[in-house]
């Protein structure tokens, strides 16, 4: 049963209306951002976005009709095709600002990495459904991790740091919802944190020329000592683990799990410290804190905050935002479209947009609760995760509480691929909701 009419008859009109409203706010804002107040002309991006929306709407309806369970059956096919597309893009794509993320088809171009996010969610949902009972084991996490790291590494090669980084929260959230052992997840997060924090703190102190030292800093500065300590710790861990293997005593777990976490974290940090060049580490620091580079990404954040702040409660009015109209706001039709909303329509407009997003995310969570099967639930929460992280990171960046990543604001930012992907997401969501009572 590939197709069925139920999808249409039980469609969730509230969600459709919320999404259509959000996209129309986006198109209005793209019109405003593309307007040149001096030459009184528009760059016409809004028309393209409108076309993408119509196309996306058709796709959405299409996906509402297709049985989402068949998505699970074809999940590996979808995944492999997307990986191949990604590789082709990374090698042959048209470079835009030194990033090969787009496949050019003359009239339009698509960004396969956008669709990869959804592809990953589908295959993870399928895998986690199959492995539902075994997922608490540590080794079951290897396959999801591989599935995530393959596209991530390809995208890092493009290189598109912002898009690549979003795969990690998607993976962790899916694993969490899918039932993975929380201690495993926490351990992974802790290892990654230790591995990143140590070299970053050292690089940061070196960069700003910080004075003074203490016992801990000296310890982290000395790479050899670090290796020896983590090696000893690893040895202790292994010994306790072997002991635990022969005689299962609970307290041993309390030794080898933190031991493994700390030693692996420190070892990875040494590898990062040695492997990455200084400028690469600095780039990550700037990503985390744009103020370190006030001429580059720091400038964008400052302008965005000025745009949002100067909007006040009711905003400056449509086409009247000085920050966006006079061009001080960078990337105003894509990355910083939220700032245009907040400037021209004020706190009121921003609140409406946030409410619409809140409703969409809420619907995703609701669908996950109500889904008749695990696949549907995982798919719904995964889709909710994609949308949620885009919204959080993009708006968070615009208001200055998140690093600059260049992630688009779904449904609102200009960009065909992201809009299509988002509409497909909603299509799948409608599909799951429509079938929640169908057995």
């Amino acid at each position, binding site marked *: 049963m590939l197709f069925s009419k139920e999808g249409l008859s039980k469609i969730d009109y509230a969600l459709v209306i919320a999404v259509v409203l959000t996209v129309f706010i986006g198109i209005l804002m793209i019109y405003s951002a593309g307007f040149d107040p001096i030459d009184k002309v528009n760059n016409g991006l809004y028309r393209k976005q409108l076309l993408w929306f119509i196309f996306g709407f058709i796709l959405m309806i299409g996906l509402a009709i297709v049985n989402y369970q068949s998505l699970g059956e074809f999940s590996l096919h979808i995944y492999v095709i997307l990986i191949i597309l990604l590789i082709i893009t990374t090698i042959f794509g048209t470079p835009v600002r030194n990033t090969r993320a787009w496949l050019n088809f003359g009239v339009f171009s698509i960004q396969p990495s956008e669709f990869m996010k959804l592809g990953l969610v589908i295959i993870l949902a399928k895998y986690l459904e199959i492995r539902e009972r075994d997922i608490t084991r540590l080794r079951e996490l290897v396959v999801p991790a591989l599935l995530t790291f393959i596209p991530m590494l390809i995208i890092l090669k493009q290189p598109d740091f912002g898009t690549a980084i979003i795969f990690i929260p998607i993976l962790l959230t899916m694993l969490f919802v899918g039932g993975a052992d929380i201690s495993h997840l926490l351990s992974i997060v802790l290892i990654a944190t230790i591995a990143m924090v140590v070299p970053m703190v050292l690089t940061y102190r070196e960069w700003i020329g910080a004075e003074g030292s203490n016992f801990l800093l000296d310890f982290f500065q000395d790479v050899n000592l670090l290796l020896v300590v983590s090696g000893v710790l690893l040895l202790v861990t292994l010994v306790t683990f072997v002991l635990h293997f022969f005689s299962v005593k609970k307290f041993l777990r309390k030794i080898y799990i933190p031991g493994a976490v700390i030693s692996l974290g420190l070892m990875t940090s040494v590898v990062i410290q040695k492997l990455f060049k200084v400028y690469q580490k600095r780039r990550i620091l700037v990503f985390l804190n744009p103020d370190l580079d006030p001429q580059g990404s720091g400038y964008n954040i400052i302008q965005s905050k*000025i745009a949002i*702040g100067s909007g*006040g409660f009711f905003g400056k009015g449509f086409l009247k935002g000085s920050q966006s109209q006079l*061009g001080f706001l960078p990337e105003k039709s894509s990355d910083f479209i939220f700032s245009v909303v907040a400037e021209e329509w004020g706190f009121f407009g921003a*609140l409406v947009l946030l409410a619409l997003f809140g409703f969409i995310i809420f619907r995703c*969570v609701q669908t996950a609760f109500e889904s008749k099967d695990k696949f549907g639930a995982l798919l719904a929460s995964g889709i*909710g995760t994609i949308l949620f992280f885009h919204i959080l990171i993009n708006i968070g960046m615009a*208001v200055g509480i998140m690093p600059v990543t260049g992630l688009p604001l779904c449904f609102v930012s200009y960009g065909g691929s992201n809009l299509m992907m988002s509409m497909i997401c909603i299509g799948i969501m409608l599909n799951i909701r429509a079938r929640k009572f169908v057995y």
Partner: protein
Amino acid sequence: MLMQSSLRAKLQEAFRLRMYFYMTVTAVAFAALLLQLINLQLIQGKEYKAKARLNMESNVPIPAARGDIYDRNFREGEKNVVIVSNRPSFNITTIPAKFKSKKKLYEILDLLSRLFAINKDEIINEINNGNPWERVVLKEDVEFDTIVKLASHQDRFPNIDWEDASVRVYNFSEMFAHVIGYVGSISKDEYRKLKLEGYKHYQKIGKSGIEKQYDRLLRGRDGYVRRIVDVRQRTEGEEVGQRPIAGENLVLTIDYNIQNTLYEAMKDMKGGAIVLKPATGEILALVSKPDFDPNLIISKNNADVIKQLQKDRERPFLNRVIQSKYPPASTFKLVTAVSALETEKATPEKSYYCPGKFTLKGYKDHDFYDYDVHGTVDLYWAIAKSCSVYFYQLGLLTGPTIIMRYAEDFGLNQKSGIDIPGEVAGFVPSRQWKYKTFGQPWFDGDTVNMAIGQGFLHVTPMGMCEFVSALVNNGIVYQPHVIKEIRTNDNSRVLKTFPRKKIREIPLSPLTLQAVKKGMRMGVMSGTSGRLGYLKVPVAGKTGTAQTRSIRQEKYSQHAWFVGFAPYESPPENAVVTVVLVEYGVAGAASAVPIAEKVYTRLNDLGYFSVAPAAAAQQPEAKKAGAVPGKQVMLPQPQVQPKKNAAAPGVPGQAPQKKPVAVKKTD
């Protein structure tokens, strides 16, 4: 089955729990975004509104006119000699980022460079190094007709613009080049240093002379038009900002008439000359040759002219009065004489026999020659005839340490502090210096050389001028300066005058001064400066002929000196000191003296020596605008006093040609 379903229920329950957690995290994140929005838009909204306003306002400068410069005879409301002024003009400009491609920009630049002789490479270089949205001047100082043509062919010159400009005019071209200096586009280094003082990258700045020294007064303050602009500086609306404030005007101490005379007298020569009133330190004329025409180099269009001038081996930018050092030669004999008399090593009546050479006894005898056989001479005649043999012995008698000390006391190794930038100090050797530099002690031969101003000694003409001033002014030296007063741009008010500033006082006994001056006077009456003897004003002076090793073809070259003052034996308030140096001149008497002759004749004609001493003593600085000494220029007063002139020989004796003094280093 039951087990299955119970496990299923358990898993379902775990899933629900985790979804609740998921929902909570989502809600918290949304709340955080909302809080930050409230913070930015509602709490800090006002501050951000102000910042947004700052962003979109751009102040477009209206250039201020630089202040005018007048000569010392300036009188308000009359037709004055304007040395430097401005004229309105236009610049052709563009904003590089307006061009769709670099290729298009280069095409237009190509076209313009063919029409206006623009240095294309330099402009491309400037464009590539700057902010593409910043206005770039392609051609400075274009006539109105050209702008009209450009405007009527806008289709052929897209994105090419023009702006008002004010161009500096140096009315006497080269004549004041080394006093006034010139302006030029601000350099990157200058901009970095002066940014905080309000200098802008597009402005002109004084590069040398008065233009540099008093740039802060002359430049005024640019006004601006406040425009609402977008990030690319395109205008959306305009508001009146602030009107430009023109720079302040300067009145020089330099008298155009004397400057002109001195300049004409030195027309084809190389060297420097200065005419100064020792009673105040006011400089009446200052000329350095070779020179340059500032009008030709102020524009950025003429960058290659500047380069060429800078490469010129004759070094036209060098102000030889204050930036070049020469051996003082025989003029230094005056210093030797003063030090001998002051320390009472000799009296003016002390005589030596001059057989035309002097043999220094030592391990190996060495002969020092004179240009003539002078017979028995006392100090007066030794100065008058510039008898070297006399001074060889006087120098040995006095000793080098004392001579050096007096040279230093007279400031020959110091800067005068003249208000023209770039001054260098002269050099007076010392025993330690010689030991450090050559690893040798000070020999008697060095003393002998130094006594007649050769050897290691090097002084600037300015330094010699200060020395003569000290002689004339009873040991007091006032700071030399070229600015008399600063006036408002409409000349209505005097903002600042420059009272004389004592920089040095050397205790000298009247007897010493009298003796040295008498010698100098005798030099004019019947000695090396004989040519000046017939002048109506009694002049006293000393010539000198300096030998230097030259980098040119000749092994030795000569610099001709004349230092002198007039009137002799009158109160110092009236006196005018003249120092002339001619590079590669024949001899002091032949090259430098005729210049001094013309200057003193002109000074006398202008009545500089006819001011009643009492009046001059009362107001030596002429502080009030009306009380300019130039006022007396027009008064048809009979020339006072040439009582000694009558006694001057009817035919001013042709100055004896000096044989090059064989001063060679034995070591």
